[in-house]
């Protein structure tokens, strides 16, 4: 119903009479303030730079080496220490570790990011519904959340990984063929890590929805879904961003963990995690097997955590640091 002829109401003499209350310089926007605080956080900047380098390494390396190189088995060159031909050495069946860390890195990073997205999707949905509607729905969803929380996560991960990994076909994506187990791992990590986020989001919603501006928005006739997604969610975004950032690191670690135990991503698809699996028996005799993937995992996780810390300080409206 578009009611076309709306009156144009002339401003009254008194209405235009106003006192200048603007500041001399325009105030900083929330984003500018956050960036200013973030910039002061040296470790976060360091983390960000390292992370960019690692992403360039994993995805830029594609241009130099093909995936066939990563899976090329050169039986004559097994367990070779780092050399000119193989800068990071070769593994137990003669594959080049440098190329495998490049392609494995892609998978690890993709797993980290997508598992985070799954977690954010489930966690935000459940937390938002519980926090906004409260009452019975809240009780049910929070009991569910607690039920997932009380089961030791590693145990749940291993059981789910084993259960779902029966026979999943390979998938094609981005011109590459992945072992179907990648999807399983993403789903399993997402499905076991969301409870923490759900609790954070619920707590945020409980406090934000009590604000006057939510009542005012409802008095404007704003429908419920817009109240939830356009009014409350943006006010709760800071802790969600921080938590999501740290989740990427957690997901990469978890993937390494399950793959190390042999229940994760199936070969020949490489990940930093399953490269460690084979290294177990060569801890002393062939250090390069675990050193390079291990170093990359450690650097990535560390950088993401620094980044998360910086974001936490930068986005926290109560933070005094300016």
């Amino acid at each position: 119903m578009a009611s076309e002829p709306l009156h144009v109401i002339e401003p009254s003499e008194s209405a235009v009479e106003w006192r200048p209350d603007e500041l001399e310089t325009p105030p900083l926007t929330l984003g500018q303030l956050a960036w200013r605080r973030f910039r002061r956080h040296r470790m976060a900047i360091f983390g960000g730079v390292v992370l960019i380098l690692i992403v360039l390494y994993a995805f830029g390396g594609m241009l130099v080496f093909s995936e066939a190189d990563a899976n090329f088995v050169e039986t004559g060159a097994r367990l070779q220490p780092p050399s000119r031909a193989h800068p990071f050495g070769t593994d137990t069946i003669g594959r080049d570790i440098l190329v495998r860390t490049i392609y494995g890195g892609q998978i690890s990073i993709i797993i980290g990011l997508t598992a985070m997205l799954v977690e954010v999707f489930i966690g935000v949905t459940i937390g938002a519904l519980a926090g906004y509607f409260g009452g019975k729905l809240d009780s049910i969803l929070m009991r569910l959340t607690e039920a997932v929380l009380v089961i030791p996560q590693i145990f749940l991960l291993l059981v789910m990984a084993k259960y779902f990994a029966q026979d999943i076909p390979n998938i094609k994506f981005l011109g590459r063929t992945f072992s179907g187990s990648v999807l399983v791992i993403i789903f399993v990590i997402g499905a076991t890590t969301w409870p923490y986020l759900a609790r954070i989001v619920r707590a945020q919603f409980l406090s934000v929805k009590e604000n006057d501006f939510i009542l005012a928005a409802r008095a404007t006739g704003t429908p419920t879904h817009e109240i939830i997604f356009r009014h409350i969610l943006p006010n709760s975004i800071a802790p969600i961003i921080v938590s999501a950032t740290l989740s990427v690191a957690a997901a990469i670690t978890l993937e390494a963990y399950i793959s190390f135990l042999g229940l994760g991503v199936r070969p020949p698809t490489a990940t930093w995690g399953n490269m460690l699996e084979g290294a177990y028996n060569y801890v002393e005799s062939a250090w390069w097997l675990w050193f390079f993937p291990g170093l990359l995992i450690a650097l990535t996780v560390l950088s993401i955590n620094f980044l998360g810390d910086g974001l936490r300080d930068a986005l926290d409206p109560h933070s005094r640091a300016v």
Partner: protein
Amino acid sequence: MESDLLLDVKDLRTCFHIAEGTVHAVNGVSFSLRNGETLGLVGESGCGKSVTMLSLLRLIAIPPGEIVSGEAIFEGRDLLRMSDAEIEHIRGNKIGMVFQDPMTSLNPVLTIGHQLCEPLRIHLGMDAQRARRRAVQLLEMVGIPDAEHRLSDYPHQFSGGMRQRVMIAMALAAEPSLLIADEPTTALDVTIQAQIVELVQHLRAQMNMAVIWITHDLGVVAEIAERILVMYAGFIVEEAMVDDLYEDSRHPYTRALLAALPRVDRRRDQRLRSIPGAPPNLLAAPKGCPFAARCELAFDRCQVEMPPLRTVATAHQSACWIDLATGKKW
């Protein structure tokens, strides 16, 4: 006359169920409002003014709140019995509301433009471009200079008075037939108060809408309202045209309130008068006249029976067992 009626509220009762018991916030409020009329609703803090208005728009959280009974016929339909979708269509469209504290009533993470366009999009189905053009007009209408640019500003870039103007623009965006102003000037300083009062009066006349102005400031309401309802402990205790109320109040509570007003012509060494005692505890079910405990004129009947609102003069109703004009007990 009948068709002129915009809102007719009958026997509205709202209570809140909390751990300590039941709070009887609104205890059978009835009033009506004509098209284009300005009604003042006065009473001290916690007497149920805001809850009455929030109940009409069904903005009370249920639970713990409960609208126990009553009806509110607005443009021929009962607000209290329509579906959630229908009441959403009334809010911000037919009935606009302005709240007390402009500092907290705007969403800090959304631009003024976004918030101002919301009712235009939702109720008038405008696309982004038309909504924006209209938003500029609305901001100009409430006296915000450089409106075009200010649309992309955030609430923290506005002062309190400016924010209240934005709130008014939002409430009026869909050209409602009723504006509920819930103490819109309380959080502002006196000069800005006067500007806001003037602005609302000006817009009311231009848009021909009815206004319900809630306040605890008898001075402000005298300027703007034609008719005044006085509330106490969830009851309407007196209803009168504005001049009658100030010159010939017929309820002891209203008289006490008026006597407590600071006056310029009073001698400086005189202390401000106040009403002894405190409002009754709303946790107890109402029994007798709620003002009896603080009333100088109270007699035994006041303790046991709530006096009904009765007509004491033309367009003047009072709920008291004593006719203050004659001193006669009913």
